[in-house]
């Protein structure tokens, strides 16, 4: 089943094109690496999928529908930016999230809380950047969402937190779940990818199955990434 379909998708901010003529199909059950340097359009693409931004041209469909109320029920989006209410406690963030999604799994939430090593009584403003990143991921992974969008989940995160996040993503793998991870830190996560999409200046210039690309070029995805963006 097609989970994401972008046809000639474009997004413009003023005179700057953040995305230009993107054509992409992502099938169910894939872990997709959306790769590119800062400003290549990765976050814009994810925001369009999450329904937080509107295309300037072309079309995008998520689970067969234009991003909106219906798709938001099935999409879990974790932005790079800290988007949590800082006055909430960790427990409050879980409860708040649980209240809006029929697919929220409380048992899974508890399991992740322990795994991510977070104090349920701690205030968000007292958490370190790594802890906040783990909390954000936890909110997404505690749901049985069909599509999970992770925007730079490893950016600026300490190595122990990075490892936990990686483990968390692995734990959350399901055959009917699609995960799109945007990152410019390819090395540690490339083992997760089934498919990779390379973006540059808002355009897709390379996309395919991770394994085929590795075999074709005789290099790891990280090495291809470094070569392409040199």
């Amino acid at each position, binding site marked *: 089943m097609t989970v994401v379909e972008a046809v000639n998708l474009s997004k413009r901010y003023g005179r700057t094109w953040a995305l230009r003529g993107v054509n992409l199909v992502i099938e169910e059950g894939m872990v997709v690496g959306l790769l590119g340097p800062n400003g290549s359009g990765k976050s814009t693409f994810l925001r369009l999928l999450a329904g937080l*931004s509107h295309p300037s041209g072309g079309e995008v469909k998520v689970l067969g529908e234009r991003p909106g109320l219906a798709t938001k029920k099935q999409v879990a989006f974790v932005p790079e930016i800290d988007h*949590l*209410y800082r006055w909430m406690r960790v427990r409050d963030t879980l409860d708040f999230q649980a209240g809006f999604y029929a697919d929220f799994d409380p048992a899974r939430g508890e399991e992740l809380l322990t795994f991510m090593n977070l104090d349920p009584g701690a205030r968000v403003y007292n958490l370190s950047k790594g802890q906040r990143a783990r909390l954000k991921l936890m909110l997404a992974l505690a749901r049985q969402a069909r599509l999970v969008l992770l925007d730079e989940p490893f950016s600026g995160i300490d190595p122990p937190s990075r490892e936990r996040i990686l483990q968390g993503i692995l734990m959350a793998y399901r055959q009917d779940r699609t995960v799109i991870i945007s990152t410019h830190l390819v090395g540690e996560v490339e083992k997760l990818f089934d498919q990779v999409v390379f973006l540059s200046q808002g355009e897709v210039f390379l996309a395919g199955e991770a394994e085929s690309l590795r075999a074709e070029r005789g290099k790891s995805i990280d090495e291809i990434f470094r070569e392409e963006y040199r």
Partner: protein
Amino acid sequence: MSLLRLYGKEMRASLGDIIMVTAVIVLLEILAILNYDKPWSAALGVMVPMVGLPLYFLSTSFESIHREWNEHTAYWLLSLPVREEVILGAKTLALLSRFIILTLPAAIGIYLFFDKLIPVPFPPDFTSTYIGLYVLSWFLFITVIPIVFLAAVSRHAVQRWGWLVQALIFVGGFWAFGKVSAWLAGLLDFLPWLSLRVPGIMIGGPQRGITMASHGIPLSMVVSGLLVAGLIFYLAALLLRYRVEV
């Protein structure tokens, strides 16, 4: 249920603010009542709340939208599977609750202040009229909130000149509100008038005391005002759904 959850979130977010401002108002009113015979007491107990609170509520109404962007929580809020009308509805309810909580001590304080200041007894219908006018202020606030929301949301619907757009929509919103509700009131002219008693307060001179005068307001104006406020609220929700981005 989503409305109640979002309302709870809004109320909890402003809890500290509510406690602090309520404490300040109570303190001002106590000071004014204890010093009712001093010339500055009316300024402290009546003028400060009557001028300060509307400005405060105007500012908090704008802030309730802008804070979501300033603190990046708009990413979370707008990715929730709820209609934009529910998001704005929860904010409206929370602002109205805050309005009632904060204006109640001011309304009681002002009443007690005049009771102390004016030696003659209040006219028999003064208390009920006073309560009626206080409740009327809630309805006035309800009609202002959608205009503020439309202006604040417009600021986030454009990529440049956001502040200017917000200011223009805010001023234009009031102008349009007046024009459209007056036109609509004309269509609803068949509705009856509501009798309204208006108190006149003299705090000095030989005619010191409270006089009551009978006036009336057409119900068509009240109904048309609420209908136009509802329309503006809906426009703000549509703008949030189709034009605003994070």
